[in-house]
């Protein structure tokens, strides 16, 4: 029996997702999508440096063209994108962020 994936169900703002917007630096209209934002602290450089690893998880087809160096707003807060990585089967992607 065929199984149809509805990734949108994981990104309901009424549950855990938050609204995000991105205006491509190359031009074009502002885009909107709902994303999951995580912000765990991690230590690096032999536990001597604290880093908050902001990660926005989103549907891969949202924010097409998003890449490092772009600025996005998540829940009204501006972040600089560090890297964008596809997850698992490529249906979702992670954007690691730096708070501005």
């Amino acid at each position: 029996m065929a199984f149809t994936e509805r990734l949108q169900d994981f990104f309901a703002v009424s549950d855990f997702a938050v609204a995000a917007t991105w205006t491509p630096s190359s031009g074009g209209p502002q885009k909107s999508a709902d994303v999951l934002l995580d912000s765990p602290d991690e230590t690096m450089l032999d536990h001597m440096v604290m880093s908050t690893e902001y990660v926005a998880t989103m549907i891969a087809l949202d924010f097409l063209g998003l890449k490092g160096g772009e600025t996005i707003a998540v829940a009204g807060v501006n972040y600089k994108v560090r890297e964008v990585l596809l997850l698992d089967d490529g249906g979702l992607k992670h954007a690691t962020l730096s708070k501005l």
Partner: protein
Amino acid sequence: MASRREAIILAVRAKLNQLATVPASRVYRSRETAITRAESPAVVLRKDSDPAPENRNVDERRLHFVIEIYTRGENAEADADPIEVEIHDALMVDRTLGDKCILLEAGDTIFVDANADLPAHRTEMHFSALYRVKPEGLSNPA
């Protein structure tokens, strides 16, 4: 009474507290907890080792210590450079550290970067201080 090596470390700490590039409130001794973005730049002073003397007739010892510089920013590695310069100059202007040691020497400098939420960099500046103590006590200059 404090050991000669403690006197050396205190003399180094006093020099670090006078830096123009890093406020004294961000100079730490043997700090073990992680440094946040807001606390950077920061400097951490640590004792490294004090190996047994090679010449058994004269208790001449060499205290190795390291000064770590932590910077954050898009150019974190380059941002550490003026701090490195100031620390080197501040210590090497008097290589006896006010008669706390015989000769202070600059050793290796190691650079490490990390992909943090704001790029992070650590410069490790290694130094050694040659000093003499009487065999019967680490506090007594020979």
